């Protein structure tokens, strides 16, 4: 029989205002096994924890139930407190009487009754708890960063500077990411390339950093501290060791019709290409879909003109397998497809563009060499209309329910830059709300209005109507003046919603990292653990976790690096002891459990068993505790009940069920 102590937390008034905490403690004493019960203001405080420790020692407690907030909040706190007092930490259970009770119920009697039942369930479970020992596993002192944009680069630099090896895997031929496509950055209007390029160079030159560009993560196995990752290095068709980056091949390549990804398809590039001039590595790749040699077998001009003899048409994809202790996801974002928003005539007029396309138009290396001109006829625009929230804040399935966060600021930036460089161009912004929380952000927006005379109109646009003469008629509303506006414009710029890179779903699945309904990676705690995934050893950097601008991204990248460093600095990790265990006397050896284990943690061995005097060799399941993550799929698949989960055993859960239904 256990000797159980029940500790009921008031959580100030968070619990005590709705739940009669002393009643819960009183009722606890009537439960089997309970020898001690008390309530206290803040159980998680030092004084509260001291009470637990004192009771363990004085009353010889073998099990603890804390009735408090969610176990997701303080389970670890109380386990540690118990451990310090000499109790096995897994003898602690939490009854969640805050999130699941006091905060959602109003009636004190009802809430107290429920709290008592939740306490009973936890007591019933603890009665069946057994001490568990966490195992140890080693930590590979190397980190993987998936994505080579500003988030990935910054994380890699920070980890590498702490002395650990880091690999960056980047899908495209160069690191740099979205930031390399931007012209200027708010709110200081620095040139994006001028601040990014040095970081790219630093990363590529760093002795602790290895960069795999034109590469993708193919397979991930293992667990925190000991991941094994297959990286597919796609065939570049160019030998990275021989290429000098002279660029002659790109110049001479006769196939120049492929849309330039870097310029958002606004112009074309050659089949052998580096995405942009400052690309790192400065080694081109051959786009085999576009290359004449690959399509017809004839051509080979690049090979002929390459003095270094670096062109290699025979090159094949290569799989690199590497071990890592920590993985940082920094997969970034893209703009949403505007197919479903054709009231803005994006697919009907070349002069309706996204803001990211405008970045390229305004950039000296862009399709118009930095001249602001209409893409349809090259004419200089006189009237530009910006439309905000295109696809953001949408409750229907056309767009995204969230605010993309960066659009208000970059639109102010665009408006300001245009007015600055082309004072004769009128700029109108249709907005729903202007959101500028951030250091110097509102001041920046006000400058656009006050100093640069940008015309902000509160109201959405209903339709963009292309005119026969090539102009665009913008039909919008001005809610403050209560009128419908018809405005003739030469260009329309859409502040298109951003969404996580579509690849992130695949990557999250490989990492078993959770993802929310919008495909953003979920953080372990929205406030307190914002850069960690709930999956141990996986960290989040940049927009893959939620919309954010460059300063925020860099800050989060640093934070993710610190968390990764904290992990890599350890030599050993304690493993979760709540793993599956097979009772070899009950095991049929049928392999059903093996078939549902997502971690390959179950194998079958022939083992000598002594079944009530019968000695025989049987095929039985064996769980590798280092691989098992404790999901429990095997326990239900097993028909004989031989497989059980420590910490969530069949009998423990049934005891909870019984207590609740009593």
């Amino acid at each position, binding site marked *: 029989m256990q000797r159980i102590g029940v500790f009921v937390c008031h959580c100030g008034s968070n619990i005590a205002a709705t739940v009669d905490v002393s009643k819960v403690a009183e009722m606890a004493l009537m439960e089997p096994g309970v020898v001690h019960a008390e309530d206290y203001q803040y159980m998680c405080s030092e004084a509260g924890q001291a009470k637990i420790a004192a009771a363990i020692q004085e009353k010889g407690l073998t099990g603890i139930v804390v009735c408090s907030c969610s176990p997701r909040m303080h389970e670890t706190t109380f386990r540690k407190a118990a451990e310090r007092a000499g109790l096995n930490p897994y003898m602690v259970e939490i009854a969640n009487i805050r999130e699941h009770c006091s905060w959602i119920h109003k009636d004190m009697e009802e809430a107290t009754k429920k709290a008592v039942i939740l306490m009973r369930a936890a007591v019933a479970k603890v009665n069946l708890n057994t001490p568990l020992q966490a195992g140890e596993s080693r930590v590979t002192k190397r980190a993987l960063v998936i994505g080579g944009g500003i988030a990935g680069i910054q994380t890699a630099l920070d980890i590498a500077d702490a002395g650990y090896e880091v690999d960056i895997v980047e899908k495209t031929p160069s690191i740099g990411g979205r930031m390399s496509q931007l012209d200027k950055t708010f709110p200081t209007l620095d040139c994006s390339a001028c601040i990014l390029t040095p970081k790219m160079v630093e990363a590529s030159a760093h002795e602790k950093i290895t960069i795999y560009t034109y590469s993708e993560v193919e397979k991930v196995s293992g667990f925190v501290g000991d991941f094994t990752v297959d990286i597919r290095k796609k065939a570049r068709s160019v030998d990275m060791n021989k290429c000098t980056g002279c660029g002659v091949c790109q110049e001479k390549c006769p196939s120049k019709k492929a849309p330039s990804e870097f310029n958002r398809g606004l112009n074309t590039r050659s089949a052998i290409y580096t995405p942009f001039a400052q690309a790192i590595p400065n080694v081109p790749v051959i786009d085999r879909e576009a290359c004449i040699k690959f399509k017809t077998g004839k051509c080979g001009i690049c090979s002929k003109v390459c003095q270094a003899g670096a062109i290699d048409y025979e090159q094949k994809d290569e799989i690199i397998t590497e071990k890592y202790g920590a993985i940082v996801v920094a997969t970034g974002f893209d703009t949403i497809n505007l197919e479903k928003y054709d*009231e803005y005539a994006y697919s009907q007029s070349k002069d309706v563009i996204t803001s990211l396309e405008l970045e390229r138009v305004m950039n000296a290396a862009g399709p118009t060499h930095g001249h602001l001109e209409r893409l349809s006829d090259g004419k200089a625009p006189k009237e530009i209309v910006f439309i905000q*929230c295109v696809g953001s*804040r*949408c*409750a*229907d399935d*056309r*767009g995204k329910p969230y605010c993309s966060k960066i659009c208000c600021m970059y639109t102010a930036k665009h408006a300001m830059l245009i007015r600055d460089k082309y004072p004769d161009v009128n700029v109108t912004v249709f907005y*729903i709300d202007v959101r500028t929380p951030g250091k110097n952000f509102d001041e920046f927006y006000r400058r656009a209005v006050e100093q640069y005379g940008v015309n902000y109109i*509160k*109201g*959405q*646009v*209903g*339709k963009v109507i292309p005119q026969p003469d090539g102009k665009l008629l913008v*039909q*919008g*509303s*001005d*809610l403050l003046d*209560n009128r*419908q*506006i018809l405005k003739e414009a030469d260009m329309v710029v859409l502040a298109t919603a951003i969404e996580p890179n579509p690849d992130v779903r695949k990557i999250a699945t490989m990492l078993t990292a959770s993802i929310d309904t919008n495909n953003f990676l979920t953080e372990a705690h929205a406030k307190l653990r914002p850069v960690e995934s709930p999956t141990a050893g996986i960290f989040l950097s940049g927009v893959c976790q939620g919309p954010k601008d460059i300063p925020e991204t860099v800050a989060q990248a640093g934070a993710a690096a610190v968390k990764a460093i904290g992990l890599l600095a350890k030599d050993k990790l304690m493993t979760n002891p709540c793993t599956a265990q097979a009772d070899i006397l009950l095991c049929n050896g049928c392999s059903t459990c093996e078939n549902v284990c997502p971690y390959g943690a179950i194998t079958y061995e022939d083992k000598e068993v002594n079944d009530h005097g019968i000695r025989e060799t049987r095929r039985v399941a064996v769980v590798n505790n280092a691989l098992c993550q404790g999901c429990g799929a095997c326990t239900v698949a097993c028909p004989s009940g031989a497989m059980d989960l420590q910490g969530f055993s069949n009998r423990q859960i049934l005891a909870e069920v019984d207590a609740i239904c009593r």
Partner: protein
Amino acid sequence: MSSEKKQAEMIKEISGVNPLKCMKCGKCSATCPSYNEMDIKPHQFVSYVINEDIESLVNSKSLWKCLSCFACVERCPRDVKPGKLIDAARQVVVRQRSQDYLKADEIPELLDPELPQQLLVSAFRRYRR
């Protein structure tokens, strides 16, 4: 419940619209082809229902100027669909017998030889009980 409140509830019920979902972006008003003919603008319908000012709503010219073209319904980003509110308000009016917007005796002069059947049918349905 006051009669205004009742009517507001009825409009919400018939239309199936939750006006609280509106974020006041004005896309409906930006979209509406009849905007200039309306005294209460499409985006304002939402606040009239929220504020339970149904009196003004049912006396509004806008009820009869709405084309039922569903453009606002299609483009509303918040799933509010002001066109449905307008239609529900119109229902509230025409369901009261004497309030028919189309009087029987005014029909003959509105007719012309090519007038398709459906125009008459739909007018009856829109304007009369």
